[in-house]
C-alpha cells in the first residue's frame, strides 16, 4: 500500500509506519547476527561489546524459569527500560502466547521487537496474538513449516525455531530447523494440486505455502533458538540454513560470558570456515551445564506450547 494522495501525487517524505516491509526489514538487518538474552543493563553492555546485533531483555533466562517453576510472565517494564537505555542496538522482549495486553505494554515502552514466546506460560491455549494490529514487529517460535506459516499469517515478521529453551541442548533446534527446511525443499518439487493438499495437511494458508514454494525459503527471516550453547552449535544451525541465532541461557550461564558471546558472534559470521571456528572455540571456559531431554517430562517441554 503506497501512501499516495488522492490525486496520486507522491510527495517527498510522505511516510507510513508499521508496514510489513518495515517490520520484516528490521529482521533482515539482524541476519548473520546473534541475539542474546540479558537480565541486567550490565549484561546488555557485555552483549553489545561482544557484537550482538540485538538483545532480549528478560527478568530471568529460560534456564532459571525452568528451575524456579511457577507462572512466567512479561518482565518488569523497569528492567526493560533500563536495558533499552544501556545500549544502542535493538532491544526485544517477550510476551506470553496470546497475551495481547502484555504486547500493548511493550509497544508503549517502545521495544524494537516482541517475542511471543513459549518460554513464558501461555495466556491463551487457542489463539495467538493478532500481530497485524501492532506497529511493533513480532517474532514467533515454530517446530515445523505449518506452525511457521500460521504465525506469519497472524502477522509475525520473523520466525525462529523453538528448540528447547534453557537446556543448553541443541538437539531440538536442529530437529525444528531440519523440519522447516526439509518441508520447504519438498514444497519446491510440488505442482499446484499438490500444494493445495499440502497446505491443508500442514494447516497453513495456501497463499503462504505457494509463496514459500516459489521463494524456496520462508517469506520472512528465520533464526535458530532454544539450546544453542557453543560457537559450534551456532555454526551448525547456520549451516542448516537459518539466518541467524538467538542465544539464551547459553551465554550468561557459562563460565566466561563475555568471551563466549564474542566467540559465538564470530562463529555466525564465519560459520563455513572450520579453521576459524577451531580458533574461536578455544579456551572459552565452562559452557552451561545443560539438560538431557529424555530427563524432561512432557509438561516440562516448552516447545509443546503454541497452536
Amino acid at each position, binding site marked *: 500500500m503506497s501512501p499516495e494522495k488522492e490525486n496520486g501525487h507522491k510527495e517527498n517524505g510522505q511516510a507510513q509506519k508499521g508496514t510489513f516491509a518495515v517490520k520484516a526489514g528490521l529482521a533482515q*538487518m539482524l541476519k548473520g547476527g546473534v541475539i542474546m538474552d540479558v537480565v541486567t543493563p550490565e549484561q546488555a553492555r557485555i552483549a553489545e561489546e561482544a557484537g550482538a*546485533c540485538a538483545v532480549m531483555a528478560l527478568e530471568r533466562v529460560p534456564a532459571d524459569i525452568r528451575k524456579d517453576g511457577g507462572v512466567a510472565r512479561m518482565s518488569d517494564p523497569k528492567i526493560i527500560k533500563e536495558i533499552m537505555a544501556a545500549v*544502542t542496538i535493538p532491544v526485544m522482549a517477550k510476551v506470553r502466547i496470546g497475551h495481547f495486553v502484555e504486547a500493548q505494554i511493550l509497544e508503549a515502552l517502545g521495544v524494537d521487537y516482541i517475542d511471543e514466546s513459549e518460554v513464558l506460560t501461555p495466556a491463551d491455549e487457542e489463539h495467538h496474538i493478532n500481530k497485524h494490529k501492532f506497529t511493533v514487529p513480532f517474532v514467533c517460535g515454530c517446530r515445523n513449516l505449518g506452525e511457521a506459516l500460521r504465525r506469519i499469517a497472524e502477522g509475525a515478521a520473523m520466525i525462529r525455531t523453538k528448540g528447547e529453551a534453557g537446556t543448553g541442548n541443541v538437539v531440538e533446534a536442529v530437529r525444528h530447523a531440519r523440519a522447516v527446511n526439509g518441508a520447504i525443499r519438498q514444497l519446491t518439487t510440488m505442482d499446484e494440486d499438490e500444494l493445495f493438499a499440502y497446505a491443508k495437511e500442514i494447516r497453513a494458508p495456501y497463499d503462504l505455502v505457494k509463496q514459500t514454494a516459489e521463494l524456496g525459503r520462508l517469506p520472512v527471516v528465520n533464526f535458530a533458538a532454544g539450546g544453542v550453547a557453543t560457537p559450534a552449535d551456532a555454526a551448525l544451525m547456520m549451516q542448516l540454513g537459518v539466518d541467524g541465532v538467538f542465544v539464551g541461557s547459553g551465554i550468561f550461564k557459562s563460565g566466561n560470558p563475555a568471551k563466549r558471546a564474542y566467540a559465538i558472534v564470530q562463529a555466525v559470521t564465519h560459520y563455513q570456515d572450520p579453521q576459524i571456528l577451531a580458533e574461536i572455540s578455544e579456551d572459552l571456559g565452562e559452557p552451561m551445564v545443560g539438560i538431557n531431554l529424555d530427563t524432561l517430562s512432557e509438561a516440562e517441554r516448552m516447545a509443546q506450547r503454541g497452536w
Partner: protein
Amino acid sequence: MTTIGVLALQGAFEEHIKMLERLGVRAVEVRKPQELEGLDGLIIPGGESTSMALIAERWGLVEPLRRWVHSGRPTWGTCAGMILIADRATGQKEGGQTLLGGLDVTVNRNYFGRQVNSFEAWLEAPILGPEPIRAVFIRAPAVTEVGPGVEVLATLPGKEGQPVAVALRKGPILATAFHPELTDDLRWHRLFLQMVTEAQEQASAPAER
C-alpha cells in the same frame, strides 16, 4: 566483468547481492581482507554498525577497509554502512565505536527513533529521474552536517522541520540512510554501478598533459 563486493560480516548482504545479480553484475561476499582484491566496488550493507565494526576489528579488516574508502575506490554504504563510512557519528554506543570514515559528514545514529518509528516514504531524488522512489527507513540514521564537496541527493524533513540529508555522494562514494535492497526498484544500484564504471574509465584513461 564488473565485480562488486558486499561486506558480509553481519546484516542484509544477501539482499544487495540479489539486486546486483539482477543487474548482471558479479557479486561476492567479503569477510576477510584478501577478499577485497580484484573488486571494482564495495557495498557496506545495513545491519548493526557496532556488530560489523567489532567483527571487522577481530579479523583485521578495519585498516584494509579504511584504505579502500580513503583511496577513492567506489563504495556505497546503506544505513549501518553509511554510519561506518561517515567521518563523524553521534549517538554512538557507550565508549564509542570504530568508524572507517571517508565521507565528510556528521551522521546521527537512529535519528528517526526506534523501530516503532521506522517507516516507508516516497523520496524525491532528481539524480534518479522525476519519478519519486520508495524508501524503507529502519531505525535509520540521517546526516545533519555536510562537508564541502558532498552532494546531497535526497532529503527528508528533520525533527525541527529543517531538511536532513538521507542520500549523499562525493566522488566515488555513495551513502543512503535507507534500504534500496529491500525494494524492487533497481535505480540506486544502477546509479552505484554507473559510479563504478566512471571510476574504471578514469583509472584506465591515459594521464592527461
